[in-house]
């Protein structure tokens, strides 16, 4: 394990534990401002979308690939459709993976 990895894990461990322990440690002395509470609702959607969309639309990180031969795009669309229609996360992942591999097999 490199020093960089060690630092990453140490940093992630520290912030995650501090968040989880925050209220257990401080007790009733602190309160969540309502605005923060509402903002937290949007964090997962914002972060995950921000990570996923560029991966899918620019699979090599450099070039736009906005056509139906893009395996990342077709796979993600499949996952999205399954998740939207059936609300089954594992089925969404499985279906997306199947289409992704099929597309790579067909068009690569």
């Amino acid at each position: 394990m490199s020093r960089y990895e060690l630092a990453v894990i140490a940093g992630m461990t520290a912030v995650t534990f501090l968040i989880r322990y925050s209220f257990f440690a401080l007790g009733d002395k602190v309160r969540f401002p309502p605005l923060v509470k509402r903002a937290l609702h949007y964090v997962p959607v914002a972060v995950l979308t921000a990570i996923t969309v560029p991966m899918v639309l620019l699979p090599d990180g450099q070039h736009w690939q906005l056509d139906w031969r893009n395996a990342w795009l077709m796979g993600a669309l499949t996952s999205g459709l399954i998740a939207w229609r059936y609300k089954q996360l594992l089925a969404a992942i499985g279906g997306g993976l199947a289409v992704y591999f099929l597309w790579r097999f067909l068009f690569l």
Partner: protein
Amino acid sequence: MTQPHPSRRTELWHGARDSLPMLVGAAPFGVIFGTLAAPSGLSVFGALGMSLFVFAGSSQFIALTLLASGAGLAVIVLTTLVVNLRHALYSATLLPYVAGLGQRWRIPLAFWLTDETFAVVQHRYGQADDAPHKHWYHLGSSLAMYCNWLFWTLAGVLLGRSVEGLDKLGLEFAMAATFTGIVVPMLRNVPMVAAALAAATVALLARNLDYKLGLMLAALAGVVVGVCLESRKTVADGEGAPRKAAEDMGNRYEPL
């Protein structure tokens, strides 16, 4: 009340037992995380260490993506902070139930606090019986989730090492599929959709910024847009219900 209270051991066992659906749900993610660690540039011990010490699935996945794209330490830690901030809500919600316990209970229970355990134990804590050992139930759920996560991470790591050329296979797509599957069901109202669109747009525009700063900007843009649209529309959620808010969030966020 004629019935005797459940013993510590019974509570411990019930906590683990009631977490079973969550254990099954988390297993594939443990495997995928372990499998993708090597292609993302994380060593075997790095992957195991992350599951052992960080123990937060969604941020571990995101860290893999960031590591693979060469992001800096500060960005990874900051992203972890943002992504895991929801745990503070859980912590606040469970506080009344653990307030009577010493630090030797509170520290490990805090360390093991996940979406899944939160969902399971707040139900038990909320039950009307005055059983004195409910924190053992909490401990049972925590230990089950922890051992499960470590076990499946290890399985994934071993799988990843035994399959040649996994990186060329393009299994990184599993991560994109996972994130898509989590996000889409959450897009149930205008502010959520707008938050996603704003985040996507900024992420695309700012994708070439150094240190993956674009990700932070995009997350910020999404949150700001979502909150602004929501407050225009509503319905001040009011002070009274931090518990309701946390529950709502626990339900809304697909555990990972």
